[in-house]
């Protein structure tokens, strides 16, 4: 580590310690209230009618029989939502189009676009009656052929999911050309396909390209070139708390919504757009959130309960079932990818190329642009080209999922890197070290890296006891992989109030998903020199705190931590001012150190923070510190994972023997929760690698919408997950924070695939690498039952 950077933070009193989180007691005793834990007198219960088909035109909806059922109070459909996009005759106002997509995902418009797509909402005096009413809603569908994967979606005459909306991009593709030409000549002139109405529009909603250097020359300079093709399936974030929302639409037009989300301001603004009222008429009160991982950043239920409450004048609550969560909320993308990398004999990458075709689901917006920016980001690539396609299919609209877009891309990129290093007989970590991006490296996507910690992270991995240990044994192998994620920032607001007893109440706008209350409070304690337990954090509703962007992008410790730091500095400056007034000295002569105010020369002038706090009301009034910021300078995250596996050649079952996460976090404010993010991200990745997948039948119906059949890792499937925190401080944050939550899900799939190759000599190119898939690969390779290795 850079010594200057280290010295800057070595005197911190609280940052880097491991206090008990403030909200912990409520959460271990069952007192904490999550989305579904709220109810009101006279409250109605709602249910959502969902499409049985993956693709169909809605010819009519008749809910008169449902309304006639005793206990049913109201039904809403998309016809209850305003349609501002209809006023835009040009059809190109992207904001209005996005409102249409958002509205039509909440309740289907002209068509249902995936199995489980919401069609109508019912409010009744209890959930049983609401459910019964769903059977009494008569929807007439014209069933259309479902489009279920990338290859099908780009066929000419495949059928168009959004009719008349997405002309073929200039560099669009059709399926017959996709396979053969992807890498060598992936950008095709589509002008010859613009003939006739059928082929005028496409299911390609977006196209991205990034280039650097001369890709052809780069591959000519290579001694070894590896090119591979990949397919990955849809997986779900798998948060344990189903979505739940409760609303009261008052007669004055003001709406209050209680829900658990990753950002109540986002829920407010999206709901306002869908129901067509000003955001300032909506107050969203955040409940505790039972996991999100990106999946609780969009509205599903909120506009529906709001409209049902408007119609009934009573509070309305809807809580999803687990099946609804799987079928009706955002999974992450399935993908088709191709990657080609060339290197010289001595292990220097000369060229890297990738094509990523990501499923967007039923509405545009897969994170393919982010995957495209991440895939080669850890490396210094002289000649590179990355293309991304955002492709519509009849599956639930994808939502963000932890480092959106990066994990699938890294699965492809990092397995090709591994194969190259094997072919060149260079240690895979040394190969990465040789090609490491560092400060000043220009990425294929354009930006030049500021200080990043890839070198330090790879070095720490190379000397980690895990990497130096022996993993030997039959059918055993070791894999490594690296991952990159941007880390994010965004607007954030914090208020700190000095209480008369010397404590400080802290109000922030970032929902706390994994211990951020305490991490944010630690910034305040550090600035003021008061105990962490004396800072009392809470999450304000949308009327109680300034705008704060989502808890996402690994941004909370960075942006809200910084806002808290700045609010505490504001409080400190005002209290120093007050002390100087009381002492009748210049403010510049008063300091606050270790929780004590003192005068720079007169040692008789001393006051505890608590003493001054108790005098505020009588000496001029209370003091409130505030900060409302949108800081730049988020520092990139780099992670290297090391995994040892054992493959059972008779069953294809893979056992994780040992797993280590090495990650540059910038600065670990609360190392326990930093480790927890690293472990949790790795384990979600392990689930993605080994078991998790949506299984669709040919009609597009999800066959495994339960936790029994959508199999997430259990405690029995795993060893302890070792962590090694690297701290290459981010110069852009007061305490050096980069962000931690997302990047640990990026490397696991590739690391495990590389370990499988190490164990049994097979290069896997699909996810999940579940026992049946692995067994098929073993059979295809060498027949079952063969013992690999020593």
């Amino acid at each position: 580590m850079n010594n200057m950077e280290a010295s800057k933070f070595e005197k911190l009193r609280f940052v880097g310690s491991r206090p008990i989180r403030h909200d912990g007691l409520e959460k271990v005793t069952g007192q904490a209230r999550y989305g579904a834990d709220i109810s009101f007198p006279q409250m109605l219960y709602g249910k959502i009618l969902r499409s049985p088909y993956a693709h169909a035109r809605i010819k009519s909806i008749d809910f008169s029989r449902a309304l006639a059922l005793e206990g049913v109070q109201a039904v809403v459909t998309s016809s209850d939502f305003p349609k501002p996009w209809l006023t835009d005759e040009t059809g190109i106002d992207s904001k209005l189009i996005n409102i249409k997509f958002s509205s039509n995902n909440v309740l289907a418009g002209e068509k249902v676009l995936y199995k489980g797509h919401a069609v109508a909402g019912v409010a009744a005096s209890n959930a049983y009656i609401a459910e019964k009413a769903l059977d009494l809603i008569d929807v007439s569908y014209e069933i259309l052929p479902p489009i279920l994967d990338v290859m099908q979606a780009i066929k000419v005459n495949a059928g168009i999911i959004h009719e008349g909306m997405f002309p073929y991009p200039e560099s669009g593709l059709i399926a017959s050309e996709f396979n053969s030409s992807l890498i060598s000549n992936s950008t095709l002139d589509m002008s010859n396909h613009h003939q006739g109405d059928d082929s005028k529009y496409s299911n390609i909603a977006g196209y991205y390209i990034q280039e650097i250097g001369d890709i052809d020359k780069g591959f000519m300079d290579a001694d070894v070139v590896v090119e591979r093709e990949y397919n990955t399936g849809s997986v779900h974030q798998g948060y344990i708390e189903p979505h739940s929302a409760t609303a009261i639409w008052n007669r004055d037009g003001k709406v209050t919504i209680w829900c658990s989300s990753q950002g109540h301001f986002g829920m407010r603004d999206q709901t306002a757009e869908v129901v067509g009222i000003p955001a300032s008429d909506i107050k969203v009160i955040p409940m505790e959130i039972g996991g999100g991982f990106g999946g609780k950043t969009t509205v599903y239920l909120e506009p529906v309960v709001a409209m049902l409450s408007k119609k009934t004048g009573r509070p309305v609550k809807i809580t999803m079932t687990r099946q609804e969560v799987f079928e009706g909320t955002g999974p992450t993308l399935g993908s088709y990818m191709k990657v080609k990398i060339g290197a010289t004999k001595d292990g220097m990458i000369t060229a890297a190329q990738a094509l990523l075709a990501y499923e967007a689901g039923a509405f545009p917006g897969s994170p393919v642009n982010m995957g495209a920016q991440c895939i080669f980001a850890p490396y210094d690539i002289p000649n590179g080209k990355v293309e991304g396609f955002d492709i519509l299919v009849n599956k639930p609209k994808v939502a963000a999922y932890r480092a959106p877009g990066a994990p699938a891309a890294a699965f492809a990129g990092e397995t090709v890197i591994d194969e190259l290093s094997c072919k060149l007989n260079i240690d895979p970590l040394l190969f990465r070290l040789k090609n490491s991006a560092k400060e000043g490296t220009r990425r294929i996507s354009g930006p030049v890296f500021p200080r990043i910690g890839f070198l330090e992270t790879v070095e720490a991995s190379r000397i980690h006891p895990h990497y130096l240990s022996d993993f030997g044994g039959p059918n055993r192998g070791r894999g490594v992989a690296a991952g990159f994620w941007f880390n994010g920032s965004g607007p954030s607001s914090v208020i700190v109030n000095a209480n008369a007893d010397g404590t400080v109440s802290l109000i922030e706008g970032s929902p706390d998903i994994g211990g951020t209350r305490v991490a944010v409070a630690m910034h305040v304690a550090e600035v003021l020199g008061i105990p962490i337990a004396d800072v009392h954090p809470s999450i304000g509703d949308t009327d109680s705190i300034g705008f704060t962007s989502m808890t996402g992008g690994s941004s909370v410790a960075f942006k809200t931590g910084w806002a808290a730091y700045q609010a505490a500095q504001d409080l400190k400056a005002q209290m120093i001012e007050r002390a100087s007034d009381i002492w009748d000295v210049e403010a510049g002569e008063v300091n606050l150190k270790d929780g004590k105010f003192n005068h720079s020369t007169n040692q008789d002038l001393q006051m505890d923070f608590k003493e001054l706090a108790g005098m505020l009301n009588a000496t001029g009034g209370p003091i409130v510190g505030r900060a409302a910021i949108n800081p730049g300078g988020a520092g990139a995250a780099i992670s290297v994972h090391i995994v040892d596996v054992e493959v059972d050649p008779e069953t294809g079952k893979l056992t994780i023997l040992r797993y280590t996460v090495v990650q540059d976090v910038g600065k670990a404010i609360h190392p326990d929760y930093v480790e927890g993010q690293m472990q949790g991200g790795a384990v979600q990745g392990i689930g993605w690698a080994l078991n998790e997948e949506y299984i669709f039948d040919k009609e597009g119906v999800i066959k495994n919408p339960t936790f029994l059949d959508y199999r997430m890792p259990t405690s029995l499937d795993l060893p302890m997950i070792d962590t090694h925190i690297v701290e290459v401080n981010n110069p852009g944050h007061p305490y050096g924070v980069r962000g931690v939550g997302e990047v640990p899900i990026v490397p696991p799939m590739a690391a495990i695939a590389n370990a499988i190759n190490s164990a049994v000599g097979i290069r896997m190119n699909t996810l999940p690498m579940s026992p049946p898939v692995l067994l098929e690969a073993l059979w295809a390779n060498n027949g079952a039952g063969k013992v690999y290795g020593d």
Partner: protein
Amino acid sequence: MSEKVHIETNINGSQVEFLCEPRQSLLEVLRDVLDMTGTKEGCNDGNCGACTVIVDDRIIDSCLMLAVESQGKKITTIEGVAYTDRLHPLQQAFLENAALQCGICTPGFIVAAKSLLDREPDADEGRIRQWLAGNLCRCTGYDKIVRAVLAAKETMKNE
């Protein structure tokens, strides 16, 4: 609507009476009738363990038990785990080991782990992992949960 049934049971040491429909699960009654929302619903089909409670010394997913079956039983929920004057060692250990992130699965894990340590005060890591395999946590990767249960085990031995 079906006729409601009168049930008498013991929850967390107190005699409790309630009316429920025969189709209602114990989970529904705990949450919606008795307002005991500490027991969480994650899946309602017995696969996530968020609704774990102890019924007559056995752990069950309360979503899989009909409330009418609780007649005359002795039920422990998360609300009954802490002592009057302090937290249960498991609760304390979960706090000290940062064994929760979002916390939605935590009540189920603590109830399930309590049941294990009450029966098997010497449970080792492997046994703990096996016992807790019916409880899903999506945030932690289980590492710190298992460590917390191991830590609580030591505390409980010394009590």
